[in-house]
């Protein structure tokens, strides 16, 4: 006997679930306000009804901003892409720290260059859109130009002239707390060509992976890409520490030889 049950439309069900609370709260708020104001003549109850309507509107705003892809699915996709980069880098045997480059150097989007040699001097030229790139005149000036988790979010910010620590803090907070919801906030302090970024309440799990020694954790990678993009300069992750629900990323801003 064939099973004639129809599969449930999960997307429609999810949408209904998402808007059930705001709709119910609006209905309760309006009814309470009308009853309290017209029939009961009670000011506190009318105010309670109005506050319920405001809360319903805010609930709707939050429901509307919820991601379409579940966070677990995003985590799986992120993990897959990082494991692919890790396998590639490990196979080639690169051990140097990645240099995060702004879109003006890659000619595309912010990317990370994992060089063969430790000593890297980048000039003003735009790098070719390839995986293995030659960035200098010496034979050993070769490296892998990879797309990191920061590459996609790095496009959300633009380069800024004479940018202060406050500007960087605003940009990082906007991306991490606003656009992606990966952390609760960020603080930045700048000292010459060193930048210290404190990320409060990071939501990504800290798995230990070999590739993190080179490109940093996904959050550090995102921060480095944003900083590289906003300063329009290459950036490298010097150190990364985790303590008391905070992720501290120490970045070094590199200069380009003219």
């Amino acid at each position, binding site marked *: 006997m064939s099973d004639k049950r129809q599969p449930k439309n999960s997307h429609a069900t999810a949408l209904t679930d998402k808007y059930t609370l705001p709709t119910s709260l609006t209905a309760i708020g309006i009814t309470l306000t009308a009853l309290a104001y017209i029939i009961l003549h009670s000011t506190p109850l*009318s*105010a309670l009804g109005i506050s319920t309507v405001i809360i319903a509107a805010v609930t709707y*705003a939050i429901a509307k*901003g919820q991601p379409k892809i579940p966070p677990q699915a995003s985590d799986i996709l992120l993990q897959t892409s990082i494991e692919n980069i890790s396998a590639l880098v490990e196979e080639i045997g690169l051990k140097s720290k990645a240099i995060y480059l702004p879109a003006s150097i890659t000619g595309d989007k912010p990317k990370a260059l994992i060089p063969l040699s430790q000593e890297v001097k980048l000039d003003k030229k735009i790098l070719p859109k390839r995986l293995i790139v030659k960035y200098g005149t010496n034979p050993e000036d070769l490296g892998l130009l990879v797309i990191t988790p920061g590459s996609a979010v790095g496009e959300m910010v633009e380069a800024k002239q004479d940018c202060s620590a406050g500007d960087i803090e605003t940009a990082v907070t906007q991306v991490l707390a*606003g656009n992606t919801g990966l952390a609760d906030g960020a603080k930045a302090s700048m000292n010459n060509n060193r930048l210290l970024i404190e990320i409060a309440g990071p939501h990504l799990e800290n798995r230990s992976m070999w590739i993190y020694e080179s490109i940093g954790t996904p959050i550090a990678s995102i921060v480095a890409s944003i900083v590289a993009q906003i300063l329009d300069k290459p950036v490298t992750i010097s150190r990364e520490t985790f303590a008391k629900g905070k992720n501290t990323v120490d970045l070094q801003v590199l200069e380009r030889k003219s």
Partner: protein
Amino acid sequence: MRTHDRYMLSLTATYAATTLALAVYGTTLDLYLSVFIVEYFVITLLHSPFNAKTQRITNVIGFVLFGVFLLIVALRVLQILGVPI
């Protein structure tokens, strides 16, 4: 606790406390509304930034509430000037 949850919790707790406190004093509805609107702006600002979609809707709510606030102020001014409403 995520920012969205904290935002909702703060707003709900503040509104509940305000309603209770002003109910004890026995004030008019426009005072309740004005306090709610100011609280909305303060709490929203403290929990910003949100993602683009949420931010757009909270901005619209803000515009509507600001309009209501201006209306309340205008009615009060007219009342003080002795204009019959």
